[in-house]
């Protein structure tokens, strides 16, 4: 592990000043990604600015019935906040199905959004990986790619975005609020995660020293009946092969509103807009759900070991919609 310097920020402006004072500086929140990746030699950070004393841990009500989640709120605290459980059960469930209790006690919401892929070829430090070493190639293309993405991929990278809660947040059109050297910004959730294209090393449209301060989740009555389902190789403490956040509303016997997002299949948290568009105005039955799911998966690009995700994702969408329709909790 390379040597580090460490400083504690006292407020947001102090944090930004410290983070922009020298290159190779990263913010330290829960540390579950950053410390791990520095030790593994993947993160090049040489200076850490500890932001844990910043007052960014609250979950507050927004005027439209939505929530403002502080960037330093811990995953476990957000998952168990009554307003989250009641208004956005899929967010709570996604958080509780991620990582382990110890990691959820440590990991912050802002850090969750900036966590990096668990692609083994990024982490091993030696395989060709365009994220780690641009231009070196992508070992996953012809390698063991069972866990890799089928949406948003390129010939440069097929790494899956690992977050669970980001899947629920993209379904509800969350907005990421930042403060940086150039002031405050609000970034639409979908825009915060860049597709790999030919620059997979660029993951977020965020400037050096720019700090996530919070996540706004707009008010959405449909979200009260939302579910999050996760399918994985073991029952607990494992990343998703496929996951789904789903919520559906029916009016006069037809689908009037629907939200669907997928995890484990995209290079970014994947909002299933095609499936949503296909469903509105249709009867809320399994045939419609199946047909909408098929529309979403039509453009999937599979590799040698991950073709099973196409069928699994369709079944996940159908089950997620059925569970939301039936008012199940998960």
């Amino acid at each position, binding site marked *: *592990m*390379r*040597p*580090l*310097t*460490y400083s504690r920020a006292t407020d947001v402006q102090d944090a930004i000043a410290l983070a922009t004072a020298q290159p190779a500086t990263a913010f*330290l929140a*829960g*540390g*579950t990604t950053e*410390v*791990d990746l*520095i*030790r*593994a030699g993947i993160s090049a950070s040489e200076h*850490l600015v*500890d932001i*844990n004393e910043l007052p960014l841990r609250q979950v507050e009500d927004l005027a439209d019935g939505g929530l403002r989640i502080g960037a330093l709120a811990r995953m476990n605290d957000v998952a168990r906040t009554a307003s989250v459980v009641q208004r956005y059960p899929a967010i709570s469930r996604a958080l509780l199905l991620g*990582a*382990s*209790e*110890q*990691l959820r*006690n*440590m990991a912050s919401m802002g850090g969750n959004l900036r966590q990096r892929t668990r692609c083994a070829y990024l982490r091993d430090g030696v395989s060709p990986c365009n994220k780690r070493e641009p231009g070196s190639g992508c070992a996953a293309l012809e390698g063991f790619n069972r866990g890799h993405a089928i949406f948003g991929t390129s010939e440069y990278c097929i790494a899956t975005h690992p977050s669970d809660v980001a899947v629920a947040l993209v379904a509800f059109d969350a907005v990421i609020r930042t403060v940086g050297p150039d002031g405050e910004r609000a970034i639409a959730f979908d825009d915060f995660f860049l597709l790999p294209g030919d620059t997979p090393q660029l993951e977020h449209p965020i400037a050096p020293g720019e700090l996530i301060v919070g996540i706004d989740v707009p008010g959405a009555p449909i979200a009260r009946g939302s579910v999050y389902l996760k399918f994985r190789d073991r*029952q*607990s*403490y494992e990343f998703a092969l496929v996951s789904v956040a789903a919520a559906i509303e029916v009016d006069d016997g037809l689908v009037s509103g629907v939200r669907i997002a997928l995890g484990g299949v995209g290079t970014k948290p994947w909002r299933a807009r095609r499936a949503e568009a296909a469903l509105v105005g249709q009867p809320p039955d399994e045939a419609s759900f199946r047909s909408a799911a098929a529309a979403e998966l039509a453009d999937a690009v599979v590799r040698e070991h991950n073709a099973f995700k196409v069928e699994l994702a369709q079944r996940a969408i159908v089950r997620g919609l059925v569970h939301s329709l039936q008012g199940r909790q998960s």
Partner: protein
Amino acid sequence: MTSVEEAVTKVPVPLEINGRQEVVVLEPRVSLLDALREHLDLTGSKKGCDQGTCGSCTVWIDGRRVLACLTLAVAAAGHEIVTIEGLADGDQLHAMQRAFIEYDAFQCGYCTSGQIMSAVKVIEEGNATTDEDISEYMSGNICRCAAYPNIRAAIRHVRDQAGGRS
């Protein structure tokens, strides 16, 4: 010319561990786990994976179970740390420690201190109602000897003894 190693600045890090104030002089990159094991002679917390996946380094910070391997010691300054060494009351073992012995909840023992630090909390958190819950909320502690059934039995025993509290 100074090498990078020589240029590294060590800093005094005040740590409150098991109710005692300690000051260790460390590089900022040193994990809490290494500070405990290598600098404070508290070797009960174990280093299994050193990457936050096995749970054998589980300690409590401000009353919550966390991983000492992914915590920098310098970042833990100002917080209350409890390790497995702080669990017993003198020679009187904690109920969970006794239960692990009684129910043979380990084989090689390497993961055991982390298992116990999690097990106490899983009851305190109210997540030990069913075996399914115990498995789910203990999933961050891996046991390569697969002593899981006996670990669950020990947790059930303490849960029932304590009427749901630790």
